[in-house]
């Protein structure tokens, strides 16, 4: 009984530790800029005292008054925002002059917090506010005071909104561009290797040709070569091709007039090919192991019936290998979508074509004071892989098990 309680609570604790960061991510992305950077995410769910600045009235309002009445919360919510401020007004921080205890007959400037209900002097008038935000500003003689900006602390009720998402998705062009670029990179970089690998896996499994077995060993052993080792020569190769293409462009077209001859060496195409090459060893390993396990009689009877290898491959092998194809394509999809280093070295480097991980890495710097935007952008970058992952979890686990329990 004790062990049962213990295992429940230990597991609950671990799950809690694993989930808290997600709560932090999502709740921060749903808060206003001020809240996100002044109070931790765990204060988002309970009333929290936060600072705001409001002005007593609009500029250019010159009516002569004796008493001005208004509401602080109404003034704050004047500007349309997705995060209406509600709650108890606690205090106002005011700069005021008081008699200096050390220097008689002089005054000194102090900042002090004035609670609700207490009178304070603002521009020669008496300013009083209540917890619900109502304030009155009275003068002895009719006056036309200029608007005064005051810093107010409000015990603010929780409020969530999607402003950050709207801002990064529509007002800012980086995130939509990153999203489209990531799709441009990921879809071909998933489909091409799986096509190529499926043919190769079939050949390695069921076709006869000289050197088959040791070629397969070489292909699979390339799986462990760190890709960093290959970056520089690949890059040099692509710049060679690009400069050649540039001169071809110059020679064949009238690009000199528009100054568009330069062919970029780092492009989506270079990223597709590189990701394809890097993904092939694992793909061939997984698919070949699967295809070898299919019943051999199938192949033999199809051969007897006069089917060609291409027919056997497209009509029999592909339909039967769907689980293995699915599990590799999830691997490759997640790997390419989440990849930073290959895209950094070989992918396009103009600002509009950056893939999501690079954009997010840059936003860690540019949005360091706009945490709501940073977190919203991170959420958007995660939606696609997490959805793919959850919907195809079964195949992913199958692939993991095939890849590591059997060896490799």
């Amino acid at each position, binding site marked *: 009984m004790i062990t049962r309680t213990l*295992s429940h609570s230990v*597991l609950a604790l*671990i*799950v809690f530790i*694993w989930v808290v*960061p997600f709560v932090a*991510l999502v709740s921060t992305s749903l808060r206003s800029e*001020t809240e996100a*950077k*002044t*109070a*931790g995410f765990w204060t988002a769910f309970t009333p929290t005292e936060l600072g705001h600045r409001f002005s007593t009235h609009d500029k250019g309002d010159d009516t002569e008054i004796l008493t001005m009445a208004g509401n602080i919360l109404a003034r704050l919510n004047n500007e349309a925002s997705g995060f209406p401020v509600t709650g108890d007004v606690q205090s106002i*921080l005011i700069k005021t002059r008081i008699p200096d205890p050390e220097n008689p007959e002089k005054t000194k400037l102090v900042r002090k917090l004035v609670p609700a209900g207490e009178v304070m002097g603002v521009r020669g008038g008496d300013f009083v506010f209540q917890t619900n935000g109502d304030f009155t500003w009275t003068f002895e003689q009719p006056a036309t005071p200029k608007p005064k900006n005051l810093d107010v*602390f409000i015990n603010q009720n929780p409020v969530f909104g999607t402003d950050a998402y709207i801002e990064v998705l*529509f007002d800012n*062009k980086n995130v939509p561009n990153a999203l489209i670029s990531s*799709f*441009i990179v990921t879809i071909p970089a998933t*489909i091409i290797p799986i*096509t*190529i690998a499926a*043919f*190769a896996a079939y*050949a390695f499994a069921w*076709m006869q*040709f000289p050197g088959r077995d040791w070629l397969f060993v070489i*292909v699979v*052993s390339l799986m*462990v070569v760190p890709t*960093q*080792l*290959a970056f*520089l020569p*690949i890059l040099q*190769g692509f710049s060679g091709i690009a400069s050649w293409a540039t001169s071809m462009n110059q020679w064949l077209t009238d690009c000199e007039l528009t100054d568009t001859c330069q062919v970029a060496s780092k492009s989506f*195409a270079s990223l597709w090919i590189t990701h394809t*090459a*890097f993904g092939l060893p694992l793909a061939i390993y997984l698919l070949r192991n699967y295809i070898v396990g299919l019943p051999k009689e199938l192949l033999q009877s199809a051969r007897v019936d006069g089917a060609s*290898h*291409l027919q056997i491959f497209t009509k029999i092998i592909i339909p039967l290998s769907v689980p293995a194809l699915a599990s590799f394509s999830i691997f490759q999809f997640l790997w390419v979508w*989440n990849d*930073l*280093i290959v895209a*950094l070295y070989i992918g396009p480097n103009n600002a509009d074509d950056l893939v999501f991980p690079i954009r*997010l*890495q840059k936003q*860690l710097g540019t949005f360091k004071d706009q*945490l709501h935007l*940073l*977190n919203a952008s*991170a959420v958007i*970058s*995660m939606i696609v*892989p*997490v959805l793919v*992952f959850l919907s195809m*979890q079964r195949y992913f686990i199958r692939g993991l098990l095939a890849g*590591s*329990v059997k*060896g490799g």
Partner: protein
Amino acid sequence: MRSLKLAIASNSLAIFLTIVFLLPITAIVAFVVTGPLDDAMANFGLWMHRAFEWSFPEMNTIERFSKIGFAIRSVIIAVGISFMYFGITNWLNMSLARHRERDAVGRQSRIVEAIQPWIFVGPTLVLLLLFLLVPALSTLGLSFQESDGTPSLRNYAFLWDRDALGYLQFRLAMRNSLLWLILVPTVCISFGLLIAVLADSVRWGVVAKTFIFIPLAISFVGAAVIWRNIFAGGGIEPLQTINGVTPSYQIGLMKSLLGHTAEYNEPLYSLKFWGNFFLMWILVWVQTGFAMVIFSAALRGVPEDTIEAATIDGANPFQMFFRIKLPQIYSTVLVVWTTLVILVLKVFDIPYALSANDDDKLLLATMMENARNNWSIGGDNVDNLFAAIAVMLMLTVVPNMIFNGWRIRREQKELGH
């Protein structure tokens, strides 16, 4: 027989040449011809923009939609070219053989059968040769050269020469790699085992496992952003005011729990030396799910009768785990361990995203990037230095590869192959 070999060779050459010229030209022509589609897409976007009265600038709509247009056509062309390769080569193979041996069906099929395997594995072999094998060897060559190509050991001087570029960085990177290497796999495996065992014993285990598992789908940079909310403080200069008020709260949960005030806003992962452990934790958070899934499956494979026998003998849960289950999944633990070790040695994204230029947090992969971007004093030699560090990275992985190979061969022998 002689003529058959000749036929095979000439047919292969014909197919090869056709592919080498046809595919790139088709790709370029396809891109040029479909170019106007982007404008069509942009016009469609503009029409949508006006029809639905979207509030953001029209220019944005035009740019986004023409990019979507580019995305669609480039995806279709790229995928189409790769399908086209297999279609065209097989068709060529068949029709060339038929053309050459009009009367002998047997010889026809022998030519086709001889060429076909190479059509199937050709792209793989070419890609791996050009993008992994040759580059890896050429990096090795580069690392032993000066920038002008003369042979030299100067790039490796950071190994022994105190004054060489990267001497200190290399030591820090090795120290950190060693820490990562010991801690991350150990913690991942311990947590993974613990969760796998616990989750199997409670009813809501599947839900728990899903939660632990999800971080595997997230990019390392995304994980860095997530944990920034926990480990980083303030995020703003303490004296800088927001809406006129100095922030009075600590934003980072962990920092708050440690009692750091808002004025002390150094992120935990930037702390000297100890910061490394917070970076490691992020990787542990991501990778524990992997260990857990594998162990969960392996534990389910433990034979029931051994467990029953232990239960009858009155084993308590701890004895059951350490004496009965763990020894039986020992080889799986080793596999997970080697996989994690290779992953850790190559880890790049997390330190790059959170502490890129901090020598104290260097790992070999980030050191490569730093060498390329920041060590401008290396002048022309920077690429060769980069290559040398890449070779060092390769060397750290080698013991693991050898171990892995030895293990696979032993397994194969045990299976009787």
